Each structure stands twice: as structure tokens, then as C-alpha cells.
């Protein structure tokens, strides 16, 4: 029998992709397979003989240990979602299943727990649902560390927050993280770009309107403040709102009440306000473009997001993160970037900050199916902005690969619309189609043609 041979049993356990460990009646680990080592970061040698809770460090160890429940109820637990904190102090979402271990004569000798790493699934789900925490903001630089250190304390309080940072630095991500770390996390997070809407529309969007308030207002519509009641509202680009709207926002912040358009009764709201801007509000106040009283109302906590050029040491981490994300989203197997590409990325300007770096990696994914991202896969303007010598940037780039870069660039600029891209390149759409096939250029994910069909 295989199970009588401990070595054979270990080989079988090590071949399983899920983590598996067994414990005796004293909760000491008696076996620990290779996947368990990988997921927890604890070696078998250190795990065997240790208390399972000291190795596994799961969120349920203290309150509702699954193995304990199984041993007590005599019923297995299947695919219960929990998280562990691994040896490198990372929070890993897992699903666990448990069963009782019996000896040959039926005596209970312990339990067995199997667990599966759900990090990838959780990453994708979070991407879809927009649930972000500190752990989603990438950076080890001193500039970002000071932001991380500030966020939990900021989240715990209920004061207004002003997030200042250039475009693409992750202002909304930080606002979501503050919301998700705060006691308001079970209620809604609502974001609105104040700079994108004219005053009348913005007022209706923020405060809502009653039926008949204006032409076409046939039904009551709740505003974003009402939707975010009990939760958090992000007023993005607050530096771009008109003086009249500033006055209205000030009243909401002071009185904690909104007046929907067409209504005479104020409605109380309990909303935490986070404002964000790329502008220097203090300077705007000095120039008379922004109300001083509103500035002080929203500037209780200030979070300063550094531009990417001030935290270049974070670029390799960000690149790894974006590659992992696009690999998951596009089912590809890109392993990383070449040394030359990293050299270029570390020197490129990235005026659009982390968002531009993300777009750069996405662009490279169009041209690179697997293996390393090479220079020929990068947008030319990024390579040029790095200021590296042409012989470095063009090394290894054939004429056809440069052509592929130009074609992919044009497609990206026109969101995959081939007719528009062909017009920009000065060629017929049929010629472009032939080139796409010959150069093996993949269309961007949301290409123009499929969008029209939907």
C-alpha cells in the first residue's frame, strides 16, 4: 500500500498543487507539502513539530479554526475563504478544506488541511470591483512609504482629506484605499470628476434633483452625495470648480445638508469628503481663484503624491506589477523586461506618471506574446524620452519590428480603429490589414470594430 510508505506518501503530497498539512491531536504539524512551503513561505523543516497556528497564521485561527470545527463536528469544511499572513508578511487570500485523520483502527489521530492560493483570482476580482487598499499601491521608495504610513491614521479619522498629485499618480487609488481602510468601508465610495462637468450639470450630479426641477427632469434623481450617504465621496479636480460651485460645496461641508435642485427641504447627509487636485490650491487661494474657507475645510489632512520621476526606484516594482496584471488579464506569459528596456524605463520622462508607465507596458503586450519585453516592443516616444544613444535604443530592432512599433502606436492612438490608424499612416485600410497580419501585430483589447458591433 502506498500510504504505508512515508516516502511515497510525501512524493504524492508534493505533487499536489494545493498546500497540504496534517496535525496531530496537539495541533503540531506532522507533514507539510511543497505547495504549503511555497504559499506560506515556511520551510518543511521549520514547520514540522510547530503549532499549526504559528505556521499558518490565518485570520480564522483564533476565532473559528476550521480544523477544530471539523474535529468537533465530525464534518469536513470545504473551500472556506480566509487569508493568511505569510513569512514575508504578505496577506494571501486562500480557500481551505479540512478533514479528519484516522488511524487504521478508526481512532482520530489528527486532521488534514488543504489550501489553495487565491491571490490571482482575488487580484482580478478586485480589479473588476475597484476594491483597493494600501496593499494595492505599489512603492518602496521613501516618498511612498511616508504616504503609506499616513493612510491608516487618515482612514481612522473622519476628517476631510486633500490629495494633491499630478495626473496619473494614483489619486483615486489612494482615495479608495482610505475609504476601504475606514469604518465607512461597508458603504459606498463615489467618485466624481468636478472638472469635467459644467456647473449646472455638476450641481444636479452632486445634489440630485426633484421631478420638474427643469425640462426633462421627469423623475427624482438622487445626487452623488445622497448615493454616498454613510460612505465616502471623492471630489476629483476640485481646483477646477467655479466660485459659485465652491460656495455650494462649502455649505454642504459646513451644514452637512444638501438641497436637491427643485427642492426647498434640505436633506441631511453623512458623507466623508475626499478632494483631489493636480493644482496648487494654496496658490489658487492667493490668486483669488479658490475660496480660502473651502480650502481650509478640505485641507484637514493632506496627502502629497509624488510624481514618478521622484520615485524612480519604484519603477521595477511597478513594471513587475503591470506585467503580472496584463499576463492575468490577457492570458499571456510575458516573463519580464530586458535589461535595456529597464534602462530605458528608468530614464524615461513619464510625464503621465504611473498611468503612462502602465500604458507603456500595455503597448508592449500588444507586440510581445511571451518571453521578455524588448526595446522594439516599446513606444518610440518613451525610448526617445529616455535620452539613451540611438545605437542602444535601436540595437536588435529590425526594419519590420520598427514598422510594427509604428503600426501598433497608430492603432493605440485611435483605440484600435483601423480606418483611422490607416489614415494617419497614409495607407489604405486593406494595406494596414495585410501589414497587421504580416507583422503579427495584435489589436488592442478594445478594438474599434468589436466596440461598434456591441
Amino acid at each position: 500500500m502506498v500510504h504505508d510508505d512515508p516516502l511515497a506518501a510525501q512524493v504524492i503530497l508534493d505533487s499536489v498543487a494545493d498546500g497540504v498539512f496534517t496535525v496531530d491531536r496537539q495541533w503540531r504539524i506532522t507533514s507539510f507539502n511543497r505547495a504549503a512551503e511555497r504559499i506560506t513561505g515556511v520551510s518543511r523543516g521549520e514547520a514540522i513539530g510547530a503549532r499549526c497556528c504559528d505556521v499558518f497564521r490565518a485570520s480564522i485561527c483564533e476565532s473559528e479554526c476550521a480544523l477544530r470545527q471539523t474535529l468537533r463536528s465530525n464534518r469536513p469544511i470545504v473551500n472556506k475563504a480566509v487569508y493568511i499572513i505569510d513569512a514575508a508578511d504578505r496577506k494571501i487570500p486562500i480557500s481551505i478544506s479540512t478533514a479528519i485523520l484516522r488511524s487504521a483502527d478508526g481512532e482520530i489521530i489528527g486532521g488534514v488541511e488543504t489550501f489553495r492560493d487565491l491571490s490571482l483570482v482575488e487580484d482580478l476580482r478586485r480589479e473588476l470591483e475597484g476594491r483597493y487598499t494600501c496593499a494595492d499601491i505599489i512603492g518602496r521608495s521613501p516618498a511612498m512609504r511616508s504616504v503609506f504610513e499616513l493612510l491608516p491614521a487618515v482612514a481612522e479619522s473622519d476628517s476631510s482629506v486633500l490629495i494633491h498629485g499630478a495626473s496619473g499618480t494614483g489619486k483615486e487609488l489612494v482615495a479608495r484605499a482610505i475609504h476601504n481602510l475606514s469604518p465607512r468601508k461597508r458603504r459606498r465610495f463615489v467618485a466624481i470628476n468636478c472638472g469635467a462637468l459644467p456647473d449646472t450639470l455638476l450641481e444636479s450630479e452632486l445634489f440630485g434633483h426633484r421631478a420638474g426641477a427643469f425640462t426633462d427632469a421627469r423623475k427624482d434623481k438622487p445626487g452623488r452625495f445622497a448615493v454616498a450617504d454613510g460612505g465616502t465621496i471623492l471630489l476629483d479636480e476640485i481646483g477646477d470648480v467655479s466660485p459659485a460651485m465652491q460656495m455650494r460645496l462649502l455649505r454642504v461641508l459646513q451644514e452637512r445638508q444638501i438641497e436637491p435642485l427643485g427642492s426647498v427641504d434640505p436633506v441631511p447627509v453623512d458623507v466623508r469628503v475626499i478632494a483631489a487636485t493636480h493644482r496648487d490650491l494654496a496658490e489658487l487661494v492667493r490668486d483669488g481663484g479658490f475660496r480660502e474657507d473651502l480650502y481650509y475645510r478640505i485641507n484637514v489632512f493632506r496627502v502629497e503624491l509624488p510624481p514618478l520621476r521622484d520615485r524612480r526606484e519604484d519603477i521595477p516594482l511597478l513594471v513587475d506589477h503591470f506585467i503580472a496584471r496584463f499576463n492575468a488579464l490577457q492570458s499571456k506569459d510575458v516573463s519580464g523586461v530586458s535589461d535595456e528596456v529597464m534602462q530605458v524605463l528608468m530614464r524615461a520622462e513619464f510625464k503621465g506618471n504611473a498611468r503612462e508607465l502602465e500604458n507603456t507596458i500595455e503597448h508592449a503586450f500588444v507586440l510581445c506574446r511571451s518571453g521578455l519585453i524588448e526595446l522594439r516592443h516599446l513606444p518610440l516616444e518613451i525610448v526617445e524620452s529616455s535620452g539613451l544613444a540611438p545605437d542602444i535604443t535601436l540595437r536588435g530592432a529590425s526594419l519590420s519590428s520598427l514598422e510594427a512599433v509604428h503600426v501598433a502606436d497608430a492603432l493605440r492612438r485611435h483605440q484600435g480603429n483601423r480606418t483611422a490608424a490607416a489614415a494617419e499612416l497614409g495607407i489604405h485600410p486593406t494595406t494596414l490589414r495585410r501589414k497587421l497580419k504580416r507583422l503579427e501585430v495584435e489589436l488592442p483589447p478594445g478594438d474599434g470594430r468589436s466596440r461598434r458591433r456591441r
Partner: protein
Amino acid sequence: MRIAMPVWQDLVSPVFDVARTVLVADVDTVNGRTRAFESHAVDPARPATTLQNLGVDVLICSAISPPVEAALWMVGIEVVPDICGRPEEIVAAFLGGAEMLRRYRSPGSRRWHSRPGDRRDKEVAEPTPAPVDGGRR
């Protein structure tokens, strides 16, 4: 000095983030004596504020997630993570120095060196705080 430890079943809790009780010890670091142990409830939504209100200087715990650890450092509480075992023994080891405390390190801990004598005592003296890197894998 006030030391806090999350406790469960007479042991340091596996994960501080979800711990419900902390044992707070007043220790005399000069004479190496522990004056008193008290048990307090923790508000899991505001762990940093809870410990700050208790006047805690140092938290000794097993697992702790980077955001919670950052919140504690932010309010001036020193965190000594990756420690497991019986709280009374751990406080005594804490007063005895890093070399003694290391005997209680969690299995697989990356912050405490695995083998005594591998590194200089100076390096072992203080476990390094976790890089607050967003925890990306």
C-alpha cells in the same frame, strides 16, 4: 515601559489584525522586572488608536499586515513582529535581550535570522520593520 501582546489561549495570537485581546505588561527595563499584567479588549477597526490610548510603547506579536504595522509605527508604537509562545516567557525574554527573544521567533520568519551565530548580534538586535511596499506579489 508598556508592552502589549495579542493573546489567545495563553499564547501570543497568530494574527494581530484580528486579535480580540491584548495583554499589557508594565516592565521596568532598568531592573528587568515586570510590574503588572492587564488584559484589554482591542477594537479591530482601530487597533492603533486602542494601543495608543492604553499608552503602549512596544507591541510584540506574531503575524501583522503591513498597513496595520505602518499605522502603529505612525502613532509611535514600536512593533516587534514574528514572535510566538507564552506571553510571560516572551516578556522575560524581551527584557533579557534580542538573543533570548530570538528563541521565540515564528517558524520561517524572515525578520529574525534562523540560526544563532549566523550574523552579528547587532544585526539580530532589532527585527527590521516590514517594507511597506503594498504587499504585491
